[in-house]
């Protein structure tokens, strides 16, 4: 079992969509995948056609005293989903702590090859507090805010820098990418996912990218990300 989480240098980088696409791509190469939503926004399920009003989730189950595993949906054969779930009118959720999830990872290990965590965007100082994973991917966009925030991150913690929504036609983006390649040359490998309209449309159709637009460039990028992840697979 290998666990993986996508961390953002800032919010709004399209991490949930990426994670959904990655889960779908991993399932496509024959892996057993569980996607776990740790964000109170409870959006990950929407990428897999869950009804808007669906409230079931691990957090809800926990609050109602049921086992957290009650809330697992089997989306496809070998692709499972555990939404966050939300209780009506309840704004404050218990923050899942790292120790609990470490124990749960061990419990889930025999059923899945991959646990993909959709983690909430937290301030840089507290990042990674909610769960510890085997593979930590840092997501950024080739723009100045990301560049500045990257400088403040301890990049040694991460295994891969993923540049989302990359557009080579933009002079700034291609220059920044060159700068980063030079800056992180031996310390952090880079992977690019191109800007693609299909990514935005996928959520509008409540489907992961690989299902909605299997021929798209972004989908191919995610597939090569999946292959890269496979090299980090821990038996």
């Amino acid at each position: 079992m290998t666990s993986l989480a996508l961390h953002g240098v800032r919010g709004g980088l399209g991490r949930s969509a990426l994670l959904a696409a990655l889960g779908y791509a991993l399932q496509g190469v024959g892996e057993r995948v569980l996607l776990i939503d740790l964000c109170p926004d409870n959006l990950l399920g929407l990428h897999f056609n869950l009804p808007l009003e669906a409230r079931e989730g691990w957090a809800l189950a926990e609050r109602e005293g049921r086992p957290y595993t009650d809330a697992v949906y089997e989306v496809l054969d070998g692709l499972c989903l555990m939404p966050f779930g939300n209780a009506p009118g309840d704004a404050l959720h218990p923050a899942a702590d790292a120790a609990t999830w470490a124990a749960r990872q061990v419990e889930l290990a025999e059923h899945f090859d991959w646990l993909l965590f959709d983690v909430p965007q937290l301030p840089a100082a507290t990042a990674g507090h909610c769960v510890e994973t085997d593979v930590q991917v840092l997501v950024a966009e080739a723009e100045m805010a990301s560049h500045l925030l990257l400088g403040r991150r301890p990049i040694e913690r991460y295994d891969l820098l993923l540049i989302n929504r990359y557009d080579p036609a933009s002079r700034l983006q291609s220059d920044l990418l060159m700068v980063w390649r030079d800056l992180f040359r031996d310390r952090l490998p880079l992977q690019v996912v191109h800007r693609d309209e299909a990514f935005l449309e996928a959520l509008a159709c409540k489907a992961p990218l690989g299902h909605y637009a299997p021929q798209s460039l972004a989908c191919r990028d995610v597939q090569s990300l999946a292959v890269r992840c496979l090299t980090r697979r821990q038996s």
Partner: protein
Amino acid sequence: MTLNPLSAYAWFTTRGAQRPVAWLFTLGVALAVLFLRLESPAWQALLAERQRLYPQLAGKRPSLGDPVRVLIQSLWLLLRRQPLPRQPGPASKAWRAVRGHWHTTRQRVQHYRGRLIDRLQQLPARYRASAFKQAASARLRGLSVFARWAFYGVLTLCAFGLALLCVTEPFGYLAQLMFICLLLGIAMLVRHMPGRFPTLMLIVLSTIISCRYLWWRYTSTLNWNDTTDLVCGVILLAAETYSWCVLILGYIQTCWPLQRKPANLPANPGHWPTVDLMIPTYNEDLAVVRTTVLAALGLDWPRECLRIYILDDGRRDAFRAFADEVGVGYIVRPDNKHAKAGNLNHALGVTDSELIAIFDCDHVPVRSFLQMTVGWFLKDPKLALVQTPHHFFSPDPFERNLGSFRRRPNEGELFYGLIQDGNDMWNAAFFCGSCAVLRRTALQSIGGFAVETVTEDAHTALRMHRQGWSSAYLSIPQAAGLATESLSAHIGQRIRWARGMVQIFRTDNPIFGRGLSLFQRVCYANAMLHFLAGLPRLVFLTAPLAFLLLHAYIIYAPALMILLYVLPHMIHASLTNSRMQGKYRQTFWGEVYETVLAWYIARPTTVALFAPKKGTFNVTAKGGLMEQGQFDWRIAQPYLWLAALNVAGLGFAVWRLFTGPTAEVGTVIVSSLWVVYNLLIIGAAVAVAAEVRQVRRAHRVQMHLPAGLVLASGHAYPCTLVDYSDVGVGLQLHQGLALKPGAQVRLLLNRGQREFAFQASVTRTVGQHVGLVFHDLSQQQRIDLVHCTFARADAWLGWHQQHEADRPLRSLVEVLKLGAVGYLRLVEHMPPWLRTWLRPLRALVHWLASYRPRTPRPIPFMNPVDRDA
């Protein structure tokens, strides 16, 4: 089906038979009904299948010849193995047994042959590891220097004596037969062993056989009693002597190709030397020069150490404006003296970098060019020149007209793949005018580029070698260009080279003069002698006619003896050359190339040989297009005359066969075979003259590169780049993605880790194939585009791997087939008046061909049991 004589007449007439024919056939049907048991199942089965078994009669107007056709086809059907299951009779059983035997024997022989070849292939490695070899070399090392020299000396003397004996000893038929079988046996075994020693062994065998042949020719095949015989014989012998010289010199030249690797540069780019990159041009299009300059601008070399100059002898304003726009130097001179060499010499005077890189304006360098070549200049201070191959991304006239582009090595590949590499071994690789780097001090020491001849490149290199400078050759394509677009232009270029090389041979002969090593002399001499091949080739193409037409005994010996001497000479030379050159030129293709050029270089080289000062420089036209397919009658003319002469020779051969003395039959047959071979080789030369249409102005290079496509809607798709030119590209899209012509897109291309986007619009779509043209590209984007396509460091590597492996015998068959194709093309392109004249002949051929038996289509999948039911 039932045959009925009453309805038969109507049946025949409705199919268009003439009345008497219909009557006759009806009579035949009546007779058949009377005398044959047509209602029997066998006849019924045959009649039911008649459309399939007699395809030539299906739907044809019944005519008088049909019974003969039926008869021939029936015989054919009986002889051919039927796809239907049949009860085998005793005769066919025996036949099958014989065939089975033959098959198993053949399989067994092939099995043992395979095992033998396997063992032979392992032999060198096993020998190197063997105790015998270890002991022998230990023993040799143990000897004193003098003893070792003595040992080698005695060994050499013995070998030399033996070789002398092999060459000069006259043999009878049987002894000669034994001798050639022995040598051929050794050669056939040795050729399967890998490594260089077996190659040398093949060379030795071939040299012995060829020397023996020549010796025999000089000592016992000249008829001194008849003037005609003697004159013709001596001419042929002179031509053969020339071929022998070229063969032996070629062996020396290419026996040990150096295969030099690039040398490393210092880690600090600050220590890299400065380079002036010069692009001489005279009358070429700006479009052609632009790509070269853009590629040069992106060479991987420190900006401050690289200066690019366009040397424009045409003094065109557009070029000056372009040079200013992209920021490269622009040099013109007041006069156009000495063409390209003069142009370069003038530029030498106004520039000052340590090294000079020279590119013809249509040779696009790849980005790694300087990094690959300059290392050797730092390593060897006496190095004056590093040459790289001239690679062509468009087919030359031979490849285009014969349809062999990228399937078979082209004409230049032998020179750049093997000969220059062989020259490099002897420090004799020479300058080829483009795609090379030279040292300024070396050029200054010989007073600049040589201007005395029309091939200034080779002459410059020769002078530098005389001054003690060395040269290097890197056999890695680091630039590519357009090949000449028409056969006449190609021949024009070769005439210039031939004339120039012969001029050097006369004015600055490499065999004499000071400063060269023996092997350098050999290499240069061979390079120049090679261009004198015209006259000897013409002699070979007409030699058998001397006997058939003039009854001159050009080889005064019995026919069988001639075969026993000539054949092994040719077979050994082919085997050895196939082994040495197979990767770069397939056996017998050289004959085609040489034959095409022979007539045209014969005169200029002979003139240059006697009057070296004459001759002008003509520029090679490139980058054009052929509007429509045409036959170059002007080029083909001499070959048509030659072919006509040879056909006449064949006529004489038939005449001599019937009326001549019986003692001459063998000679006539051997001569006729030679004539037929010549005819086919001439036919191949004629095939080249049939020019194939060239549609595109900008040649598209086939490629297979991953790329991306971004549509105006923001959707992006992966795709494959399948071809490119300097104005557009062709893409292969995934299933299900449709684009309309005129759609605006962005193409994403990679170069190394960087990715570039180019604005383009769709021009045409055919299935999943899409053509794009670029527009609104900035200067930087143009450079990037050239670097994603033409100037990729790996763009021209691996072209060899697509070539079919050389197999001498198959190659011979292909060349001969090509000869036949040549005559067919001749018929295709015949002028109309000749065509009307030949129409009856064609009709006759067609009519005769209609009697040819056909193999019936196999029955579509069907169980025989169901069929009978």
